[in-house]
């Protein structure tokens, strides 16, 4: 059991009820620190030297140090390329247009998402894993969620209220 100052008691809000499975049930070999039993909204494993819940494995995971990142919007679709307006995510004021070959799209299943107005992210980063660092480029298209009935109803209600306030 941890005796750190950050151990949370089971009286904290959002704690697990005694009948609910604790992390030790599904990580049977791991010692479960007291603070891991609180279910707050922190990620399960962190970079820290004291994970909140014993991690499943100790595999070193890569992380990415961005060199340049853009958010792109497709303007025009060609046979094997598309034209997009790119916004530099480090400096939102900087915009440029570029033609990008379809073969540079990271996931070829994303090609069906290419249409005017489609949004994608293009990241050129250093991928660091342990003592290894490689340059990494990825273009991924957003799979934007559709509007829910609840959201549409809210939008219509707000529009109706606005219309009423404006006396239209």
């Amino acid at each position, binding site marked *: 059991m941890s005796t750190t*100052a950050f151990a949370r008691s089971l009286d904290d809000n959002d704690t697990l009820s005694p009948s609910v499975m604790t992390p030790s049930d*599904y990580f049977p070999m791991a010692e479960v620190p007291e603070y891991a039993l609180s279910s707050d*909204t922190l*990620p399960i494993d962190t970079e*820290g*030297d004291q994970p909140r819940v014993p991690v499943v494995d100790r595999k070193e995971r890569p*992380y990415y140090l961005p060199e340049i990142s853009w958010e792109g919007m497709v303007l025009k679709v060609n046979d094997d390329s598309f034209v997009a307006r790119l916004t530099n995510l480090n400096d939102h004021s900087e915009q440029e247009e570029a033609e990008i070959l379809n073969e540079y799209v990271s*996931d070829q299943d994303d090609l069906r998402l290419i249409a005017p107005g489609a949004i994608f*992210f293009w990241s050129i980063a250093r991928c660091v894993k342990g003592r290894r660092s490689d340059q990494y480029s990825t273009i991924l298209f957003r799979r934007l969620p559709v509007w829910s009935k609840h959201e549409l109803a809210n939008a219509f209600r707000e529009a109706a209220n606005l219309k009423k306030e404006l006396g239209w």
Partner: protein
Amino acid sequence: MPKPDAKSASIVLLGNFNPSIFHPQWFAAHDVVSQNEADQEAELEITTQQASVFSITLGRVQVTGQQFVITGRNPALFKMLNDFVIKTFDILTHTPVHAMGINLEQKWLSNDEQWHRDFGDRIAPKHKWDFMKDPGVRDIVMEDQDRPDGRTGYIQARIRALRQKPLAILISVNDHYEIPDYKTSMGASPMLDILRTSWDTSIQRSESIIHNIIKNFS
């Protein structure tokens, strides 16, 4: 001054989940990820009724009966974590979700031992700790219970000194939201509404908290 290093963002939902359905193929079947991602890129770690853990290009997904977590480590794709969660729980709209954390974490590296000592001393002045022999800050949390957006919850900033070379500190911000008077019949919708409207603000606020910590205590 320290140098910014690895950064991660995560969305943590608390509620009641059925871990066994959270499988890459389920996400592909509902077009949350591509079929190619599910077939070729996804790395499965655990799929049981009690826990599901796998990695995809966007990040690592970990689900237990009470907690859903997605953690991304490529800052350019952080916004897609938001898309992933919204699209998933638009499908699983009846899943009870009563609390959410939008988390941002950044590691800062510095080989300057004096900088680390001074930084820790400004956060927790050592002269007040003269009853200890050689104290140093290892881990500290500040909590703001008065959210700037008036919502229910809190914002926590945590600073940790990591035991590693080169010397490093890790700053984490937990932007925690709760639904007051939550009933399970409300499902995931109230929390998704918060996520839809709060993501950008939350990430910007957390970035600002992290930079202010470095600036004010350096």
